[in-house]
Each structure stands twice: as C-alpha cells, then as structure tokens.
C-alpha cells in the first residue's frame, strides 16, 4: 500500500513549505471573508426585522438567491463575468483582472453573508416583544433599546451559529483552488500533481483540520455557554443578606 510508504511520506513532509504558505493564505482569505459576511449579514439581517417592506424584500431575495445556488457556480460566474463587468464600468481597454484573493473574499463573503443574515434575523426575532416594551416603558428610544437591551441578548443566541458559519466559510475557501487561487487546497493539488504522491492531500486535510477543529470546539463551548443559566454575581453594593430584609 503506497499510502503508508515511508519514503513518500518523507518526501511529502519535506516539501510542505508551499502548503504552509497556502495554509496562511487560507487563514487570511477566511478572516477577510468572515468580515465581509458579518457586515453583509448584519445589514441584511437587521433589514429583515425592520418595518419596511422594501428592505425586507431585498433581504429575502438576497438570502434565497445565495442559499439556493452553489458557491462554485457563483465563483465561476464572478471569475468570468467580474473582469468584463469591471471593464465596462471603468472603460478600460482590456478586461480588468481581479486578484484571486479579492475574488474569493467577495464570493465567500457574499455567500455566507446570506447565512449570517438568517442567523442575525432569528437572533433578533428570538427576543420576546416584551423586552422592547419594557425598555420603551422606561423611556428608552428604539435605538437605545436595541443597544442596551435587545442586541446584548441576541449575542448569546447568535454566537454559536455564527462560529459554525465561520467553520463552513473556512472550508468553502477551498473553491479558490478551482481558479488557481494560491490557497491551501491549491498548493496541495500542485504538490500531489508534481510528486504523484497522494500524501499531499492528507497533509492538506490535517492543516484544514488544524484551523477548523478549534472553531468546532469553540462552537460546542459557545453552545454550552448559551444554555447555561446565568449565575449570581457579587457586586460591591449588594452586601445585603437575608437577615437584613
């Protein structure tokens, strides 16, 4: 079995410089993509909870489109159409190349933005209406109520699914390989193609695992924390005991 051939393993492991480069690149793309998806998702998620039909409609169409089409198709489309579109917009002589990094950050960001939007929406909707009314009865404006009362409560609910989205996002950055992106998957593919040793893919998997497993642990921890009851906190003022009452 060549998979256990020590020579092949030695050769592969001696050649991991490019893989580590891809590893770092994948992390960079993931972080940037996550940022885009959080911005897009928060905006659209809040849109979908407003009173405005237009904003809710925009959010709905966006979410349904991105959730119901494959990201690979989206990437290929943007890869092909993007440069032509930019050429048309800027009036350049030739098609305008988009760096693979930018392209995937945009694609992954927009794609996961749709999922993040749903997370944000359900998070806000999970807060009972009485919370807003309680805040308003005290004289808080809607914005203040969101800031002090509603949003802090949503964090607990949305953090686990958001971390889960981050995890999926990392894995989805591997579509970069399809357009020669320089990411981890791409480097592994080159290594395997050059050497003919499949070990490169295994190392590649291990490296993705290195990124994703901690995030998965984070998801589990956040989920546990979001279910745990809040415990009493000792503050400076509350020195009172039962006896004083």
């Amino acid at each position: 079995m060549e998979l256990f051939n020590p020579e092949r393993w030695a050769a592969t492991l001696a050649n991991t410089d490019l893989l580590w480069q891809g590893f770092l690149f994948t992390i960079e793309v993931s972080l940037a993509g996550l940022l885009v998806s959080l911005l897009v998702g928060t905006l659209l998620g809040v849109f979908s909870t407003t009173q405005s039909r237009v904003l809710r409609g925009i959010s709905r169409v966006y979410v349904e489109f991105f959730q119901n089409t494959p990201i690979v198709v989206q990437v290929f489309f943007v890869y092909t159409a993007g440069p032509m579109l930019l050429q048309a917009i800027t009036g350049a002589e030739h098609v305008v190349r988009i760096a693979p990094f930018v392209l995937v950050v945009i694609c992954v960001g927009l794609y996961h933005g749709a999922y993040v939007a749903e997370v944000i929406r359900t998070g806000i909707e999970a807060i009972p209406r009485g919370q807003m009314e309680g805040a308003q009865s005290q004289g808080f404006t809607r914005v203040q109520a969101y800031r002090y009362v509603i949003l802090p409560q949503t964090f607990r609910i949305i953090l686990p699914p958001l971390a889960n989205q981050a995890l999926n996002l990392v894995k989805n950055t591997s579509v970069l390989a399809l357009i020669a992106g320089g990411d981890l998957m791409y480097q592994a593919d080159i290594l395997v193609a050059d050497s003919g040793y499949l070990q490169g893919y295994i190392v590649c998997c291990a490296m993705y695992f290195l990124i994703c497993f901690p995030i998965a642990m984070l998801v589990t921890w956040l989920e546990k924390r979001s279910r745990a009851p809040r415990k009493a906190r000792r503050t400076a003022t509350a020195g009172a005991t039962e006896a004083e009452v």
Partner: protein
Amino acid sequence: MPNNMIDIVHLNKYFGDLHVLKDVSLSVREGEKVVLIGPSGSGKSTLIRSINWLEEPSSGEVRINGELMTKKNHLEITRKYTSMVFQQFNLYPNMTVMGNLTLAPIKLQKKTREEAEAEAMRSLKRVGLAHKADEYPQNLSGGQQQRVAIARALCTKQPIMLLDEPTSALDPEMVNEVLNVMVELAQENITMICVTHEMGFARQVADRIVFMEDGQILEEGTPEHFFTHPDNPRCQAFLDKIL
C-alpha cells in the same frame, strides 16, 4: 385642570378593523388609585398601554399632568411621569436584578452608579428582595420577579405607576406576596392605575373602580358603590360571574 394627573379624552384605538377603544374618556387625580376591571378583550390593557404610548391613539388625547402626549414627546413624558409593571414582568434576563434596576437611572436619568445602586437597594428593600440584588431574574420565582419589576418601576421615581395584570401570570401561591407589596405601595401618594382580576385588592386599595366592556367604560365608582349596587346590569353580570 390643575389636579388631574391623567386626562384621557375621547380616545379611540383601532387594530386594523377592530375598534378596541371606543371614545373613552377618563381622568385620574394625583395620588388616586384606579383599578380597571372587565372581561378579557374589553380594552383595559389597551387603555392602560395608551397612557405610556405603548399603544398610539388612533384619535383622541392623552394628557399627563396637563401635557398633551404626541409622537414627538411621548418618551420624554414617559421618562418624567410613568413607570409600568407588566403581566410577563419584562425584566432584562441578561442583567442582574441590580442591573435591571440601575439601567434607566444611569442611562436616562444620568445618575452616577453609586446613586443609582443606593436607590435600587432602597427599592429592593421595600419589596423584600435586597438579598437578591446579584441574582439573575430567571433564578427567581415568578412572585420574586414581579416584585423586582415593581422595584424597578419604583426606583425611577415617576409619580404614576401603571400595572397591567401584575398577578395574572403568577402561580396562585405567589399572588399574595405581590399583592402585599402593591397594597403597601398604595399607601403612598403615587398615582396608580392597575388592571387586575383581584377583586380583594380592588376593594382594599381602589379609590375608584372602572369597569370596561367592549372598548367602553360602562361603570365607575367607589368600591363600596361598585360591589354593592352597580348601576349597569352588565357590570352586575360580570361581578356575579367572578365573585
């Protein structure tokens, strides 16, 4: 109208096609305790919620201490004059009891944390829950949560307290601890409007009982008048059913 704390004048409220409040007028003097009763769906809650603009009137006026409430000034008036206790408590679950009591004083009334916490402790002592200041609301019983909600309403020191069925969501054995706090509150000069089905409480503390049905006020009077010889036959029918 110098002594009226609240003036509701020809108030109408629609929910879509549903006419919930039909030309309701009601005035409440400073320090008066008014208990609103009536069958469910009669508009009592909508009426009390109109007083702090949780329900915006479809037409008519709400005046607090002579000031006309509008879309623009309702928050300002609410901050100055009214606090509310809800059926479902509506405490903030992400904050401790102390956090619940000090949020509005610190953020809206611009008190220092020390002032706000001292005031909060005074309020908590009054409802007998000073030892729960560091707890989160969901670790308290329903009765305790509602007493915290009353303390929260107290410590912002508005002259009007609105109570919307404060004991309706409680287990029977917890109703009395909340009613006792309310009875004690009623000794003070605070203006109190309470929607409730607790007739014992109504009889004990109300200066005036207002009976509503089908979006209208059908009968008003002292508890004495109201419980012994109400003029309106529907009011009598309601009393027969619940007493």
